[in-house]
């Protein structure tokens, strides 16, 4: 954990513990070749676009991506957004995701054997990340029984029903996007931009939150905070809103 420690003007008393605010480029520098990276968002909604763009510039390689999808890459219209920029740069060795229907390049790389793509049911993916963050060794889900998703997985019977044992997911780094943070790192999400972001905040060694607005500590009602400051290492002020 990195802290900005604010002492009292008058004595040595620590009056506040804040999180460093860094640039998107600095954030991207903290993602190293070979890292596993969780990226929040659902088809661009609620993705940390400033950090993604900065990461594209770094051209970091051999990453493992854990993300709901790989955003949009339409080979016909040439529309490329968000994470698809990194897919295009071939920055990922492996992609763990639930849906690549909107990214024809990810599909192409998968079919061509250029990138390993593991397709995971969306609810299982969400729960795996939650389990990773919550210290669970796994969970039993009915989802995927009788499908290819069950291949190679342990099936456990409980009360005559069969369930797949799914294991937790963790990552080296999570880059997430919130609507608002206070300076200590508490986060509030907006609308469906919440999606995987609060889950990923719990499941990575290093958590960097890109936010649209940073307010003073105490300005957010403690009942309305979605992610506690203890999960957040760095804040980045969003520079990039369009995708």
């Amino acid at each position, binding site marked *: 954990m990195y802290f900005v420690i604010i002492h009292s003007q008058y004595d040595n008393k620590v009056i506040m513990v804040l999180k460093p605010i860094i640039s998107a480029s600095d954030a991207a520098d903290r993602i190293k070749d070979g890292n596993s990276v969780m990226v929040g968002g659902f088809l661009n909604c609620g993705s940390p676009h400033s950090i993604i763009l900065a990461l594209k510039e770094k051209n970091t390689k051999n990453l493992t991506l854990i993300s709901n999808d790989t955003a949009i890459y339409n080979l016909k219209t040439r529309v490329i957004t968000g994470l698809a920029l990194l897919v295009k740069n071939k920055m990922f060795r492996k992609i763990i995701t639930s849906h690549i229907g909107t990214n024809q390049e990810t599909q192409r790389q998968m079919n061509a054997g250029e990138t390993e793509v593991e*397709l995971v049911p969306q609810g299982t993916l969400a729960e795996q990340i939650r389990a990773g963050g919550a210290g669970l060794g796994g969970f039993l889900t009915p989802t995927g029984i009788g499908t290819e998703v069950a291949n190679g997985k342990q099936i456990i019977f409980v009360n005559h029903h069969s369930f797949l044992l799914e294991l937790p997911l963790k990552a080296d780094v999570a880059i997430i996007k919130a609507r608002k943070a206070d300076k200590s790192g508490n986060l509030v999400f907006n*609308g469906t931009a919440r999606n995987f972001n609060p889950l990923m905040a719990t499941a990575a060694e290093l958590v960097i939150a890109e936010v649209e607005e940073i307010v003073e500590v105490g300005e957010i009602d403690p009942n309305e905070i979605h992610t506690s400051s203890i999960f957040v290492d760095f804040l980045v002020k969003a520079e990039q809103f369009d995708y």
Partner: protein
Amino acid sequence: MEYIANKEIIARRIAQIFKTGEVVNLGIGLPTLVEKYISPEVNIILMSENGIMGLGPAPAKGFESRDITDSGGSAATIRKGGCFFDSATSFGIIRGGHVDYTVLGVLEVDQDGNLANYKVPGKMVPGMGGAMDLTIGARIVIAATLHFQPTGSSRLKRHCTLPLTAHKEVNLVVTDLGVFEVQGGRFYLAEYFAPYTPEYILEHTDADIIVKNNCIKVVINTQITEEKQCQKLV
């Protein structure tokens, strides 16, 4: 009848199934059409797996919010009384049996209630997204599909050949030819849409179909006849 019209027949028929207060998840594609045929006398709650209960209509041009989208990524709105949640909560709602209906598109659906719609190996690999959880969790799983593929073969099959999205989870198949209940490894024809006939449907579908005793003839003109109400299906 033209292609689009056929999809609308399906959407319109499915829209009649829901009752006020029920929670419904509509998949991308054909299922999305269902929404516009829901009677104003019926007030359902649309949920979308990207984290919204009470999905509203698309916003007017210029009123889109970057932060409110549907599961297809399109700009959306939230209705009064709706709420947002994260993806783990969303699939807790779905897997936990708190969604009444899921309506999903189809590549193949078979008489055992198997559904394939996420993968054509080596070709099209969109991924399952939330579909596997939805078919497991929703109280009633409705497959919405044009009866025939462009090649002319039926999408209703004896056995799916593509990788499965759902294993024995489909309860109801609604096509542009009729309504099929799935039970005990058979399709049961519950309604047929004239001018098609049960005979025509049986002849052109490579699956075991039993015509229900109380099978209903529905006359399709430009709109489904109002003469009948959908019976309680499950």
